[in-house]
């Protein structure tokens, strides 16, 4: 059981899908509870894995490999395992999904399908984080595409079709680039090993790229091109300017629960892929392009923040804030320091919770007020004090207030970028200082938004709005508590991550 734990975890939601399919769609409450139970079981499984995860041990854990199928000499394996990088994200996925299922209890339209797609999505996301075979990774990566397309397309807002298609085609393009790159990597590694070895294993691939039998094959140009292609593929998902434009559309139109998952987990797949594949397999190229990545990170931070500042729709404000926050991830990984790398991973996790909470709050407020336009809101602290309070807390977490998880990641990322070696990023200090402006801008747009929505005189039409329902407390308290726990005592996360981070960074020699 222990060694197949990950497999159980990944495919458990599919069992849930089968169970849900057997329930008549009229039994809405049964379906809802079942979905919650299934995701809860996944959450418990992931926590058991978390508990059994050995700290301070380098390398993979819970790893298994099984031959899957082959096309000619191409052997495809079912190879999974986790390390300190994927472990937190795995738990993040189950938590955010479980809470988003709680958050979606207010959905009344086509309930059965909703949970089927959510659970399929859960399998895809978990699979992405455990897959160690590139082909498998790609499969799971793509598997997340369709459920999200449906979640946006069926339960979305006015422009749902545009948004869902844009999401599908845009991120589909990213996946296509990723696939091409994987194939290129495969062939180059094959060639580099003098046609003696074929592998899709990320682990083996990293070894081959580090120490090929035939170094002439893997020239700097080839590796550089591969790295850039990987970067673009994941940049679309993360998203990185200028590949970000699908995100606001998708977020604004998606239903609350889907937004939570989209911002909470799906974007993280981009960052995860970048670290796992880009930095894990091609550390030298990552170092070579570190400056570019750092600059893009800064652009993301500033650009996202500036756009968030002028949004008129609360949800798109949060969406742009996601773009801004993902810049921190880029900044952290580009620094090639343990702190920066850890900051990036912290940011992935922390933003997962915070953005999910923000989207949930926006969704809850929209559900009551029927508007997301900032200028039409106001005085919510008066009409729905609990919701407004959590909204404010979420905004503060997003601002990066110490004691909440966002601060830790920002701190680490900044320590990273300022500590970046001169040989990797020449103008690290300048980049860091510009990025710091983003902190002010973040505070500006979020506080301004809070001033205009939760503060101010209460609007006539918002009198008597119902405040938070008991079921809504689950995601609100859950997400905020997690953010606080990580913010107050980040050690629980850092002792899981640290060894892996040291491994990644040590590949470039410090």
């Amino acid at each position: 059981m222990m060694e197949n734990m990950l497999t159980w975890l990944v495919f458990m939601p599919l069992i849930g899908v089968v169970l849900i399919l057997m329930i008549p769609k009229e039994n809405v409450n049964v379906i809802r509870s079942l979905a919650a139970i299934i995701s809860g079981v996944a959450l418990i499984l992931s926590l058991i894995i978390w508990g059994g995860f050995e700290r301070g041990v380098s390398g993979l854990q819970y790893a298994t490999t099984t031959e899957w199928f082959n096309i000619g000499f191409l052997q495809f394996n079912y190879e999974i395992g986790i390390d300190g990088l994927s472990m937190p994200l795995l738990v993040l996925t189950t938590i955010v999904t479980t809470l988003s299922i709680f958050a979606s209890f207010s959905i009344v339209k086509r309930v059965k399908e909703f949970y089927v797609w959510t659970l399929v999505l859960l399998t895809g996301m978990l699979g992405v984080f455990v897959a160690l075979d590139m082909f498998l990774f790609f499969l799971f990566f793509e598997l997340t595409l369709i459920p999200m397309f449906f979640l946006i397309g069926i339960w979305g807002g006015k422009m749902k079709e545009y948004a869902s298609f844009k999401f599908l085609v845009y991120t589909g393009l990213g996946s296509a680039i990723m696939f091409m790159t994987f194939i290129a990597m495969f062939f180059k590694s094959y060639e580099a090993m003098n046609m003696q070895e074929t592998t899709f294993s990320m682990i083996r691939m990293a070894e081959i790229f580090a120490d090929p039998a035939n170094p002439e094959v893997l020239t700097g140009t080839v590796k550089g091109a591969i790295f850039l292609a990987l970067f673009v593929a994941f940049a679309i998902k993360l998203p990185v300017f200028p590949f970000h434009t699908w995100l606001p559309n998708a977020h604004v139109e998606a239903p609350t629960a889907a937004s939570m998952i989209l911002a909470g987990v799906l974007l993280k797949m981009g960052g995860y892929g970048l670290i796992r594949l880009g930095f894990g397999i091609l550390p030298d190229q990552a170092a070579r392009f570190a400056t570019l990545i750092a600059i893009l990170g800064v652009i993301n931070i500033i650009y996202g923040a500036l756009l968030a500042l002028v949004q008129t729709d609360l949800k798109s404000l949060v969406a742009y804030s996601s773009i801004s926050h993902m810049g921190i991830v880029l900044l952290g990984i580009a620094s090639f320091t343990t702190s920066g790398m850890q900051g990036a991973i912290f940011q992935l996790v922390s933003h997962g919770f915070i953005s999910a909470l923000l989207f949930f709050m926006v969704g809850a407020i929209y559900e009551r007020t029927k508007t997301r336009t900032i200028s039409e809101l106001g005085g919510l602290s008066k009409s729905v004090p609990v919701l407004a309070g959590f909204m404010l807390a979420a905004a503060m977490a997003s601002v990066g207030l110490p004691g909440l998880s966002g601060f830790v990641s920002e701190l680490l990322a900044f320590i990273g970028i300022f500590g970046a070696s001169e040989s990797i990023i020449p103008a690290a200090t300048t980049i860091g200082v510009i990025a710091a402006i983003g902190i002010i801008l973040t505070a500006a747009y979020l506080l301004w938004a809070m001033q205009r929505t939760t503060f101010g005189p209460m609007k006539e039409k918002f009198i008597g709005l119902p405040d938070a329902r008991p079921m809504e407390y689950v995601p609100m308290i859950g997400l905020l508590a997690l953010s606080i726990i990580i913010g107050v005592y980040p050690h629980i996360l850092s002792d899981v991550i640290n060894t892996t981070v040291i491994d990644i960074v040590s590949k470039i020699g410090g």
Partner: protein
Amino acid sequence: MIQNAWLIPVFPLIAFLILLFFGRFLKEKAAYVGIAGLGLSFIVSVMVLFERIGGETYTYVIEWITFGESTITMGYEVTPLNAMMLIVVTLVSLVVHIFSREYMHDDKRIHVFYSYLGLFSFSMLGLVLAPNVLQLFIFWELVGLCSFLLVGFWYFKPEAAAAAKKAFLTTRIGDVGLLLGLVILFNQTGSFDYGEIFAAVENGLINDTLLTAIALLIFMGAVGKSAQFPLHVWLPDAMEGPTPVSALIHAATMVAAGVYLVGVMYPLFLASPTAMTVVAYTGAITAFFAATMALVMTDIKRVLAYSTISQLGFMILALGTAGYVAGLFHLMTHAFFKALLFLGAGSVIYAVHHRQDIRDMGGLWGKMKITAVTFLIGSLAIAGVFPLAGFWSKEEILASALLNGDGFLFAIALVTAFMTAFYMFRLFFKTFTGEYRGGDHDDPHANDPGVEAQGAASVAEADNPRDDSVDQDRVPPAEDHGHHDAPKENSGFMTFPLIVLASLAVVAGFVNAPFLGHQLEGFLIQGLNVGAQPHGELWLAFLSLAVAGGGIALAWAMYYKGAIAEDFFASKAPGVHKLLINKYYLDEVYVAVFVRPTVAIGRFFWEMDKSIVDGIVNLIGRSTRGTGRSFSRGHNGQLQTYGLVSILGGLVVIALAFVIRGYFG
């Protein structure tokens, strides 16, 4: 007990948590929860202080985060400085808690108020106890959050909401500098612990340029938090918060955190002469400009706010001129008398039905004896009259400015001291002497620039007729307070704190009085290498007294006696007056220089995002579709066209084979 110093912040935290979860059931009783929490904290603080004076010390840390080989720890530590600060914070916080019991009792959200106060006390005490500068920063930000929450406590007032945002954002600018400074410092020293940082500084591990940069960045944090020029603009606006909050946060404790920060990082600053100069000049300029603005303000709280800025400038000036003890000593005394003044102001405001304009007051001496007397003590203390607390500390600051050798700084300090005495007594005389000018008109100065836009609060309130229960700070006090028109003394909940603070304002100065042997100095500098502390000679004390006396006399002549017309200076130099009334137009300048362009850039980028970045994406989509559509035009239903296309296609293929490949000739 010193091992249990962690209890000091924990009591308010528990109070906060209790009020957060059960506050709505406690209502007014919430106040007692808060008071109890702070009371316990205060008791523990006193015990800790005595043990500390006895020489005990204690540090406790746990691992907070690990990355690579580095570990950051968190914990608590008791040093002389923070032992002193613990007393100041818990004491002021306690009296403010007590004061608020009466001041806020009509507010339906009193439990929320007390929970915020609890959170603030927790954060401020955590800040003080921090054993490393990162932990300090963490609590530094948390007190900022509490300030935001408390300034915006009456969030339904647009001005309060705006002020809260402004307070948070402006200090955030400084905080970013501080954060960067810490980050660079960490990368240089590998630690956030004070000890290791100072060791690195002493051993010259950091080069001078970087050291100066770090010091200045850290100082940026202090500038923001302690409302120093040019980031002082938030503090006057923060007066939108309830008055007890102003007393606690925006006079006694949080705003002093910047000074405290410079204090705890003092060895770092000492190592960089450039940084010290910048610190000194910032302090001096702030002290002076804030004082000039305080001269003309007519809102009682704003006068006090500018006075606070000015006094904080004094402290910074002292630190910048090597007067380590002088600055921190003034921090302590100021905490007491400024809290006293604010609470006194609160008492007055409460009594005059929530008017804040001093032109609507007057003649309160006889009506509110305790308030008036304590207010007078506070005013005397801040003016620096012997033997009150302010005298001792201000004298030391002047000494430090003088002995630093920069005559300019000394001159500014002296002029500012004069202005301090003047504007405080202007305030005192206008408020407590003469005829009571309130009662018969509602808000005569609503459009007066002196009250400025924030005075429009009562206009905004008209939009919210439903806020009757919450917006008690603005409603006619008839049914609320039980006193209709004539102001009268408030209950013991309000006067007791005044008396406590007044006593302290009288005696606090003696802890470092020369004739008692500079006890505080001996306590504070133990184990620290902060250089010899400057002490003035006797003539300086007399000069200081004379200046204070001059200021008081001028105020007396103008506002009590009427010997000089009140608008004497205003009419002589209307331009200057207007400039001061409008606070040097700094707010407008900031809006024009920073806010508007940022928003404009944001708009521009947004347009660009929609039209170019996303435009290209959509264009690719559309053009693909357009290509498809144009291709499909070929399918016109005519089979002969189809044939023709195929044949032409075939010919093209032949041509391709012939020409491009070139194989076939």
